[in-house]
């Protein structure tokens, strides 16, 4: 497609502006993680400073932050796997096998609509009865439940793009629903699954509310651990920024690994061609 020079300049400027806007706060967090307290909290904001890794050492020592990252990883990876498995099963059931229909879909989506703060008290009661307070299970169960509606929703719209002919052929070959699901649907929608997993993973990985109420001593996730840096007398900006950077890092690595897959997943239409 031919684009005139002026347009190209405008477009480039637009993109650069947008990217600067998007990157700047992240840059600010990361650069704060290398600054001293005075560099962050005193005027003027510093763009040039002597970097130091003291904040990282401080953050790691202060609340055993590496353990917190491990806890976050266990809770969020397990719940993403469960949510994606159950969610795509349900999506297959609803979209292809015509179970439940719109009513079921609305029921599932409505589970996402109540503010979590109002659900926290009854959930706490349930998990106390089940003796699951302060364990991975309470987190995994709640994350899975709250990710489900998102996964189902997205997977249904992905599944729409998958041609039906393959399945029909499989039925004629005598495959049952489970075989179709595991041998055809899952592999075909793998890129879509990965895209959904990423967003689900970020949701669970960054959760604060559930983790802060349902766990706390035996299990302590990274966002909660970083909130514990907040004393009520001063904000340790440096260690908090370091903690945030360390929390973002595994998520980023995960994203980079599946990046290529995700592009494919988000362009599911390609399967059609």
């Amino acid at each position, binding site marked *: 497609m031919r684009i005139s020079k002026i347009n190209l300049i405008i477009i480039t400027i637009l993109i650069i502006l947008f990217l600067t806007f998007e990157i700047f706060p992240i840059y600010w967090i990361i650069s704060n993680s290398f600054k001293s307290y005075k560099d962050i909290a005193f005027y003027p904001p510093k763009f040039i400073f002597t970097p130091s890794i003291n904040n990282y050492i401080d953050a790691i020592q202060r609340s055993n932050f590496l353990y917190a990252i491990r806890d976050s990883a266990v809770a969020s990876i397990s719940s993403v796997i469960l949510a994606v498995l159950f969610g795509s099963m349900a999506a297959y059931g609803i979209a292809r096998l015509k179970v439940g229909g719109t009513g079921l879909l609305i029921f599932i989506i409505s589970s996402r609509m109540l503010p979590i703060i109002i659900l926290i008290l009854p959930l706490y009661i349930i998990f106390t009865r089940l003796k699951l307070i302060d364990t991975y299970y309470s987190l*995994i169960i709640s994350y899975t439940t709250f990710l489900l509606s998102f996964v189902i929703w997205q997977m249904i719209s992905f599944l729409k793009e998958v041609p039906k002919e393959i399945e029909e052929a499989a039925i004629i070959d005598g495959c049952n629903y489970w075989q179709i699901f595991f041998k055809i649907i899952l592999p075909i929608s793998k890129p879509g699954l990965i895209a959904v997993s990423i967003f689900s993973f970020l949701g669970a990985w960054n959760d604060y509310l559930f983790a802060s109420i349902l766990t706390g001593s035996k299990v302590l996730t990274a966002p909660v651990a970083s909130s514990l840096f907040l004393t009520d007398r001063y904000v340790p900006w440096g260690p908090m920024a370091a903690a945030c950077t360390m929390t973002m890092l595994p998520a980023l690595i995960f994203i980079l690994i599946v990046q290529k897959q995700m592009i494919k997943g988000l362009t599911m239409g390609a399967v059609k061609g």
Partner: protein
Amino acid sequence: MKKILLWLLVMLVGISMLATFSLVGCKTTTTTTAAAETTAAAETTSATETTKAVETTAATTTTESKPVEVKLLFLAGGLNTLAPMIEKKFNELNPNSNIKFVYEFADYGTLHDKIAIAEAGGAGAYDIYWTITDWMPEFIKAGFLMPLDSYLEKDPIDGWPNTYPQTVLNFQTVDGKLYGIPGHDGPYMLFYRTDLFNNETEKNNFKEKYGYELAPPETWDQFKDIANFFTRPDKNLYGTSFAGNDPQATPYDLVQIAHNFGAKYWEDNGYPTFNSDKWINALEFLGKLYKENSPKGAPQLDMMGRADMFKEGKLAMYADWTGFAGYFELQELSNVVGKVGYSLMPKGGNDGNRDSLDIYWCYAVSNSSKNKDAAWQVIKVLTNPEIDKLWTIGGMGGVGVRNSTLNDPEVLKQFPFYKTMAEILNGNAFGSPYTPAAAQIYDILKIAVQNYLAGSGTAKEILDAANAKIAGALTK
């Protein structure tokens, strides 16, 4: 390459799943095995991989009984560093006990919600709470906390109550029953810059202009004069600052000034009087200080930001919780090390007073705790004079409450403000509105101050509306 990475991911997932189950397995053995030996063994094997929260067996178990877990829910910051010392002291005092300490920490807002949810929703999750006196009436009314009088009678705290300042024995009592042992305090106090106040040129200029000596203000009128004198925005110096965007500062600033002006919370019949003339004067005066003497951004500051301005050397004086004072003396956080003076709050008007608003933190026992006796033993150690002092001088931001700590020469040498604090706590302090609706009242007052600063009404209109809301909250 892609394949390898994917495989790595799958393995990671597998390992973490396995880890989950093995960890949980370990935990069950720890809590259910009766024999002490097995417990110890499970403890050591799992310690490397599972124990992340500070969690240690307090004493070697001599009998077959399993260790009693005492779970403490504390405010984050500070107390975590104290934990090992508490346990050491505990073992010293109770060589034969088999109590296991389990700590949990939460930030200020979460701590409050966690206590409420744990007690209303589950019960029995925690044994000891670290709670601030403003929350106590509501928690006590709800039955979340246990009265401690019988324990105090049977097995008293070291030197109770005579070795504590009078003030810290007041606000944890309801209907004659006591629900908490104080552990950390920090009334409002006036901080000023000694280098400015003792500067000869400043002194001369001030005297010339206002006709009296430059000294820490004894009345709010003097405070205003001095603030006017030092407000020099072009030189990046301001007379004072308030913090308009902080639940723990904005409403308290108003309550502090209003009280100095002689305002009361209640009429004789118990009806709220937050719209009396004195309250209106206080709000208008506070508004003037914001507008004329504080930095332009003060309505947006939180209290950490305000303290940072003082630490940065931009404020000549300001009023704040004592807890901040320790941080002014830390080189890596502050530019005003050694330049800070401390004083009582100024008096407002003729029938005013110099009292400081005082809220403080207490150790309390959960009413649903299954190990109340053990919890009491732990509290006895937490409030031990030695721990009280360690907590104060350990650089953890603690402010001990015992007279022995307040008068300790070592403490006074490191933190001179304890002299002023002792003066405040022995006769110059007042408390929050002592009702289960205290948190709501402060919230309403915070919104009122913010509305006034945003110019959405006169002081009278805003306080009338606030008072009506408070009255509604009290009758509910």
